């Protein structure tokens, strides 16, 4: 069994040091609960609605003392967290990093920056250009950030890259109130979580934040789907939570023996088809 914790937290906007303390507290809590993997939400080190604060909170992971402190605190624990990355001077990315055991395993830079309605990420961030599965101590994983996950091609790329675990870090404001409790927007995350986990035979972990920034209320509702497409754990909407769940990696093999999407995947056909579409465009 692997013990996974989803930290449904309320980061402080623009205050990296306060957020570092928040992360260190939760890392300590994770150690006490013998957690193996601890997942934070999108931009967990900085808060979400940064706008012109983006350059002020940006980090360079390999040189950042903050990352050094996180690595030191983690020991054997693996954490996945969100931050603003200054990849080269003046280029800022909405990034997530998977780290622990003294090293950074992978950094993903958000590819799909929402830039419509109340969202304006495209104005402040540079879009990432790659979606890559990577090896970490519990198998093969993929990282996605919020709106990345709502484009199903991203999960397909991770699935084809052999990911067993898809970690989605989110800062999704609730929108659309309705008769049942919670926001209408929660449904799209669950719909995608269920679909991707079922049709890719992977675990999907979705960690969303809570709290308010400028009147936008982040909806929480973090969840885990197993490789059979079953919801196995969920945090409440709106309120802070630390959702700790045991998952059975044996489910990966069992799901793939039942449904053969994985074995029968033909990425080369999809690749050729896409290539034709792109060339003819």
């Amino acid at each position, binding site marked *: 069994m692997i013990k996974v914790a989803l930290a449904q937290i309320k980061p402080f*906007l*623009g*205050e990296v040091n306060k957020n570092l303390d928040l992360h260190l507290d939760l890392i300590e809590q994770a150690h006490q609960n013998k957690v193996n993997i601890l997942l934070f939400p999108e931009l967990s080190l900085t808060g979400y*609605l*940064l*706008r*012109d*604060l983006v350059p002020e909170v940006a980090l360079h992971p390999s040189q950042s003392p903050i990352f050094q402190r996180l690595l030191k605190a983690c020991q054997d624990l693996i954490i996945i967290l969100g931050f603003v990355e200054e990849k080269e001077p003046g280029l800022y990315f909405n990034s997530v990093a998977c780290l622990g055991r003294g090293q950074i395993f992978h950094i993903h830079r958000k590819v799909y920056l929402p830039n419509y309605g109340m969202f304006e990420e495209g104005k402040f961030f540079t879009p990432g250009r790659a979606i890559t599965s990577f090896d970490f101590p519990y198998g093969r994983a993929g990282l996605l950030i919020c709106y990345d996950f709502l484009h199903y091609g991203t999960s397909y790329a991770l699935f084809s890259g052999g990911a067993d675990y898809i970690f989605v870090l989110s800062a999704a404001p*609730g929108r659309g*109130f*309705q*008769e*049942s*409790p*919670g926001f209408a927007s929660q449904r799209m995350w669950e719909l995608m979580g269920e679909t991707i986990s079922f049709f890719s035979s992977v675990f999907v972990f979705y960690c969303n934040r809570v*709290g*308010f*920034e*400028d*009147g936008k*209320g982040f909806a929480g509702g973090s969840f885990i789907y197993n490789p059979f497409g079953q919801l196995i754990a969920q945090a409440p*909407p*709106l*309120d802070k939570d630390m959702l700790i769940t045991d998952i059975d990696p044996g489910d990966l093999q069992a799901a793939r023996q039942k449904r053969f999407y994985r074995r029968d995947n033909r990425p080369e056909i999809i690749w050729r088809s896409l290539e034709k579409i792109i060339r003819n465009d």
Partner: protein
Amino acid sequence: MTKINLEFVTHFLTSFIRQEYSKLGFQRAIIGLSGGLDSSVAAHLAARALSPANVIGLIMPYRTTPPQDLEDAREVAERLQLRTQTIDITPMIEAYFQSQPTDNNIQRGNKMARERMAILYDFSARYQALILGTSNKTELLLGYCTIHGDMASAINPLGDLYKTQVRLMARHLGVPARIIHKIPSAGFWPGQTDEAELGMSYEEIDQILYHLVDKRKSKQQLLSLGFPEEKIGRIISLIKASEFKRKPPLIPKLSERTVTHDFLYPYDWDK
């Protein structure tokens, strides 16, 4: 309009109020209580979010304010066990209009709204209490409110609820029935009612606004849904005419970085 989960909305709005007050460093809220629906609902939410001991109700009648409204405002405060203070604005208003006379009722009403605003801000400083707004989505969209008057506040929890939704919230929160069934009035002059002045009921207005704003339907689509052309037209023109009330004042851009143009920081900056 779709049904809404009133308990969820209550939880959402009280969380919002609690978190904003904490971020902004205020324990206490101050609300202008009129005895009407919106301020009663705002007071109930504030009392739940911050505890009644931290909510101050200011009752600010004018000589033409119906005694029933005063009584209703006091009843809300008593039921919630809020601290209240009553300040009669008649002397200030009369003094001003004696020196600057007008028989324009709108001008008189706007002056009263701004007098109440000025008192609220003064009391905000006296009590270190942050002003909780009471403007609903219907009046904000139609501009049926006084800029720098009743629109002035620090945070405005009802701003995304239509008037008819505020009424549903009132029932859920236990606002006295007499207030829920009271005919809405801005109280600019005796006998004034919102619905007579707007020429339609809040049910009709909110349905049209919901389809126009929330559902992004065109005028043509609203017509095919059976809404009367004249009412749709009136609502659209009210929305357009009042956009200035929903925006900060325009600044002509001269420099490379300008307030309201490209000096872009969150409201919650450093909070």
